[in-house]
């Protein structure tokens, strides 16, 4: 049964031992990093900070030592990233490389790809973005139109990606493109690594409703990439992407996006909450603890080499609801208006997260798509 995927797991002592070190580092590095910046959570970009983490060995830490990683356990990495997120550290630069591109290259890449990319990822110097969505292909990912056609020992890429977070700041994109027609739409897709400095690529940031520019549209106009830019097996892109999603959907970033607001709310409420405030803070705390335990249980499965797509979908769907509830409750529990300019720091953090919240159940797969996966998985034994 699907629910049985959730086995209660705790962080082993040797991974837990890292926590104090990470906290001390963050305390020092972020001593004058304001809360409103911390509220950006994992979309806050700071290449310098990523390089410092790289020097500490905290980027790509689960990768093999020969590539600059430390072969750390999934739980050691978990401790590091949850501390980064809880502190609101600006981790976006290396986030996608660390979370999925690095592991994806390690799992499916050639030796040359590994030698070239992984050490730079581990140094916190090489940034990846994820090129899946297209204008006419959001939830229905298998319908993508971007295409790579073989020409001698080159591939020629044409098409467009959209909503690509950090494309304007990244060195590489792992793009899902069509390389052949299959009987089923899921066939004939491949994952390719595209150097974003190549001629024929246009990247245009898209302003979001809060006013920030984190995601982009990316155009490919006869972009020539080497034949060995394919990761894994030509035509197997769909199953590779599916495996990647288990890494993408179960981590602590799927329920900690509003953490800075929750902290700020507790601060504003103070030591003597009224009954309603106490009740809701207690409820949120219980949810947070439980989501973390759910996420740790998926981490255990991942570390055993399994691909717990079903459980990861549960974590993301339940986590997004939690992250979205926090701004709603924050505005309901205190008689304090959200405020974008001027106003208290709390009012600004509230204003920011209230506006960000809708994206939490869209990015990485919408709530509806996740619920479809969960429902279908209930039948599977």
């Amino acid at each position: 049964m699907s629910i049985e995927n959730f086995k209660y797991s705790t962080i082993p002592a040797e991974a837990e031992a890292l926590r104090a070190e990470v906290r001390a580092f963050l305390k020092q590095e972020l001593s004058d990093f304001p809360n409103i910046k911390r509220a950006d959570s994992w979309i806050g970009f700071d290449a310098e900070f990523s390089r410092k983490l790289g020097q500490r060995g905290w980027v790509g830490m689960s990768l093999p030592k020969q590539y600059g990683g430390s072969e750390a356990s999934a739980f050691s990495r978990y401790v590091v990233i949850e501390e980064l997120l809880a502190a609101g550290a600006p981790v976006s630069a290396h986030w996608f490389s660390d979370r999925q591109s690095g592991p994806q290259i390690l799992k499916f890449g050639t030796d040359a790809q590994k030698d070239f990319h992984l050490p730079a990822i581990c140094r916190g110097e090489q940034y990846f973005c994820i090129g899946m969505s297209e204008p006419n292909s959001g939830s229905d990912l298998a319908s993508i139109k971007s295409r790579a056609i073989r020409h001698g020992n080159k591939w020629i890429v044409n098409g467009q990606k959209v909503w690509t977070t950090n494309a304007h700041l990244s060195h590489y994109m792992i793009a899902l493109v069509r390389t052949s027609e299959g009987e089923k739409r899921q066939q004939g897709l491949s994952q390719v690594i595209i150097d974003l400095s190549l001629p024929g690529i246009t990247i245009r940031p898209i302003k979001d409703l809060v006013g920030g520019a984190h995601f982009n549209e990316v155009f490919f106009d006869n972009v020539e990439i080497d034949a060995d830019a394919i990761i894994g097996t030509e035509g197997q892109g769909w199953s590779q992407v599916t495996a990647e999603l288990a890494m993408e959907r179960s981590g602590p970033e799927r329920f900690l996006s509003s953490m800075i607001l929750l902290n700020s709310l507790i601060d504003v409420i103070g030591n003597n909450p009224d009954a309603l405030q106490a009740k809701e803070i207690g409820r949120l705390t219980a949810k947070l603890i439980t989501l973390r335990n759910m996420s740790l249980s998926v981490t255990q499965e991942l570390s055993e080499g399994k691909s717990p797509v079903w459980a990861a979908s549960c974590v993301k769907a339940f986590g997004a609801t939690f992250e979205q509830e926090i701004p709603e409750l924050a505005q309901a529990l205190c008689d304090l208006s959200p405020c974008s300019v001027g106003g208290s720091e709390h009012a600004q953090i509230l204003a920011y997260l209230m506006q960000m919240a809708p994206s939490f159940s869209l990015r990485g797969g919408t709530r509806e798509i996740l619920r479809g996966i969960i429902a279908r998985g209930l039948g599977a034994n």
Partner: protein
Amino acid sequence: MREIFDSTIERFFQDTVDTEQVLLAEKDGWNGTLWTSLDELGFTYAMVAESAGGAGASWSDLCGVARLAGSYALPLPLCESIFVNYLLCKCDIAPLTGVLSFAAKSELRLDGDKLNGVLHDVPWGRYTQHIIAVVPKDDCNHLVVLSREQIKIRKEACNVAGEARDSFVVENISPVFCAVLPAPISSNVLMQGGAMLRSAQMAGAMHKAMTISHEYASERVQFGRPIGSFQAIQHQLAQMAEHVSASVIAAEAGFSASSGTVDALGVSTAKICTSEAAGVGASIAHAVHGAIGFTHEHPLHLLTRRLWSWRSEFGSETYWAKHLGDAVCKHGADNFWPAVTAGHFDTV
């Protein structure tokens, strides 16, 4: 030990605790035959030390038993009896046989060695042989054991599932045993323990309700196809699955954290999450089942009426959430995340 416990109790429940037996218990108030055969398995001694004839189990060994008791709607105080013997052993009192329960809510006074007062909402009270309660006296808390024969019924009551929840009057009696509750056991241990047990029972009952709802959705055909192929039904089941997953993990975490003493944070977290989930889960299970699930004949209500009862017992979601929220606010924002990762609020 966990696997043996789980498989033994599941086999027993499968063979013995069917709809008919549960309904019989609801009709008569008590299914004595069922208790007798369950008692033979010896689970009430599960946490008693091996030297005293028990199995020396820990709470994490027993979470599966409590979940299964919930999923089979077991109409007997198995969990309560295990818990009573656990506490007796903690207080160096010899374990008891027979039907045991506890009064998490009471107003009791120890005058010398005489006990006076009332016990509220004792699960299965009238059918027990012994009931325990906690009484404050001289700056410390005492665990008292009362024999059922010593006390008088004040009010016979039942929860929504027809399970007895009785109140008693205690008049000038000497408890069968009385011992100081040793540190670090909290004066609130009976509420905490009850909340812990109910959270696992609810996780089990919800899991079962989800399984039968999913099965029903695969079989029931409307508009020429199984209703489970309609997205509206799928999404309701998925939402239920999210809550069931959270409930299972929260209950397991609460039991696991309760190795030495019942863990305050783990248990309140579990009771908050499962109590909230119970309402959502019961409502979705009924929505999916349509009218047939609203009949007395269909077994769904054996689970949902228990969910509606258990979520309020030993502290509702609101009760525990308020306590937890007060603790969070008292410790302040700076201690919040450290407490979440440490698993406790008091020592940060």
